[in-house]
C-alpha cells in the first residue's frame, strides 16, 4: 500500500465533489435537516426527542453515505476510469483506501455538524456524552461508505445500486431497536439484531452503560467497517470476464 497514491486518489475524489457543490450540500445538510425536522415534530414532547434524536444520528449518516458512495464508485466502473486505473500502478487496496479517506473526511464534517446543531439549535438534552454521539455518527458514515464500496462492485447499474439501499439498510432499521426495543423482539430476530452494525450504533448511544459495553458496540461497528472495506477490495476485479 503506497500512501502517496492513496492520498492522490482521495484528493481526486474531493476535487470531483468540489465541482459538484449541490452534492456536498446535500451530503452535509440532509442529515442535519432531518434531525431538525424530527426535533420540530417532537417539540411538544421533548422527552421523546431526547430518546429518538440521538438514535437517528446513527442512522441518517449511514444511509446518505451509502447512497453517495455506491453511485460514485459505480460510475467509475461504467465510465471506464476504473479499468483505466487498473492499467496503471494503482492497487485495489489503494483505490478503496482513497475512497474511505475521502468519504471518511466528509463523514467527520457531517457528524460534527449534525451533533453540534442537535445540542445547540435543536435543543437536544441527552444523558450521553456529546463526543460519543459524534463518534457514533462518524462510524455510521464510515460504515455507509464501506458498504457502498462493497456493494457497488456487485451492482450492474446505478439503478441497482440505489435498490440495494432498501435491501441492506432498511431491514437493519427495522431491527435496530428504533421501533421495537431489541429485547422485545422474537428470539431469532434478536440474535440477528444484536450483531447488526446499526443496532451497535444505537446501543453505543444509549446512556448509563458500562465502558466495556460501549467498547463492545464500537468494536462491532469497526469490525463491520473493516470487513466491508475488505469485501470491497475482494469484489472489485482487475480483469473483466
Amino acid at each position: 500500500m503506497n500512501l502517496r497514491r492513496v492520498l492522490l486518489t482521495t484528493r481526486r475524489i474531493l476535487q470531483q465533489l468540489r465541482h459538484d457543490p449541490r452534492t456536498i450540500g446535500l451530503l452535509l445538510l440532509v442529515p442535519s435537516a432531518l434531525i431538525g425536522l424530527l426535533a420540530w415534530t417532537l417539540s411538544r414532547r421533548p422527552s421523546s426527542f431526547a430518546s429518538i434524536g440521538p438514535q437517528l444520528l446513527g442512522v441518517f449518516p449511514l444511509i446518505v453515505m451509502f447512497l453517495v458512495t455506491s453511485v460514485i464508485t459505480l460510475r467509475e466502473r461504467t465510465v471506464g476510469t476504473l479499468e483505466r486505473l487498473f492499467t496503471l500502478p494503482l492497487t485495489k487496496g489503494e483505490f478503496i483506501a482513497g475512497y474511505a479517506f475521502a468519504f471518511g473526511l466528509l463523514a467527520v464534517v457531517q457528524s460534527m455538524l449534525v451533533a453540534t446543531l442537535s445540542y445547540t439549535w435543536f435543543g437536544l438534552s441527552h444523558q450521553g456524552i456529546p463526543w460519543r454521539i459524534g463518534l457514533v455518527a462518524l462510524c455510521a458514515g464510515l460504515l455507509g461508505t464501506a458498504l457502498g464500496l462493497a456493494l457497488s462492485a456487485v451492482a450492474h447499474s446505478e439503478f441497482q445500486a440505489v435498490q440495494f439501499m432498501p435491501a441492506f439498510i432498511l431491514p437493519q432499521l427495522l431491527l435496530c431497536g428504533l421501533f421495537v426495543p431489541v429485547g422485545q423482539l422474537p428470539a431469532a430476530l434478536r440474535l440477528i439484531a444484536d450483531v447488526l452494525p446499526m443496532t451497535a450504533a444505537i446501543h453505543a448511544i444509549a446512556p448509563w452503560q458500562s465502558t466495556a459495553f460501549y467498547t463492545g458496540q464500537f468494536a462491532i461497528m469497526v469490525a463491520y467497517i473493516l470487513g466491508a472495506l475488505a469485501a470491497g477490495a475482494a469484489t472489485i476485479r482487475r480483469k473483466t470476464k
Partner: protein
Amino acid sequence: MKRGKITVDVAELRVVREGSEILHSLSFRASEGELIGLLGPSGSGKSTLMRSLLGVQVIAGGALQILTKPAGARSLRGKLGYMAQGSAVYLDLSVEENLHYFAGVLNEPREEVARVLEVVSLTSFARRVVSSLSGGERTRVSLATALLGSPPILILDEPTVGLDPILRRDLWDTFKKLAESGTTVLVSSHVMDEAARCERLLLLRDGHLLFDDSPTNLLAASKSSSYDDAFERLIEQHS
C-alpha cells in the same frame, strides 16, 4: 525501416465472453518503432484484443507476452499507454485535474502534464471541466492521459473518432513521430481510409485476423483501388 526488439507477442489468443468466443486463435507480433493500424468493423473484437494486451481481460487460451512479461504483470503497469474508447476520464474534473491525477499515479512530474496537453493541442482548455467539452475534445483528454510518461507501448482505441480532418492529420503525424522514436503504436479504427496512414495493417472481422501486412500490399493483393473494396474482397475470400 529498421525494426527493434519484439515488444508484443500474441500467440493463439482466445477470448470467450458470456459463453461465446470473441477472438479465435489470434497470433501476431509487434516490434519497437512500429505503427500498426487495427482495423475492422464495430464488434469485430478490436477493443477486446486491446484490453487483453493491457491485462484487464480474462483470456480463455493462448499466450500474451508484453516486453517479455505475461500481459497484466504487475511490472507492466504504466508501461502501456492506454486510450480507452469513449474517453474514460473523470467528466466532473477539469482537464488538468484529470491529468495531474493520472500523472501522480504514474509518479511523473507535473511538467509532464503541460507537455502532453501541448501534444494534443489542449493547452488552452486546461482549466475547463471535461463535461463541458465536445466529444472530440474529450477524446483528446483521454489521449493525453495515454501519452503521460512516454510509455514504450501505446494502445489507442479509436483515437480519431469525431475529430476534424486537420486535427486527425496532426494526430497521425504525432503517432508517426512516436513510432519513429521507438514506441510501438497500435491504433484501432473502424474507418478504412485511415489504413493508408499506417505502415502495417491488421484487419479483424468477427474475431478472425484476416490480413496482416502493409496497406500497399492490401491494395495489390486484392486488386482494389480503395481500402473499403479491398476489405470487402478479403471477406469474400474468407467466407
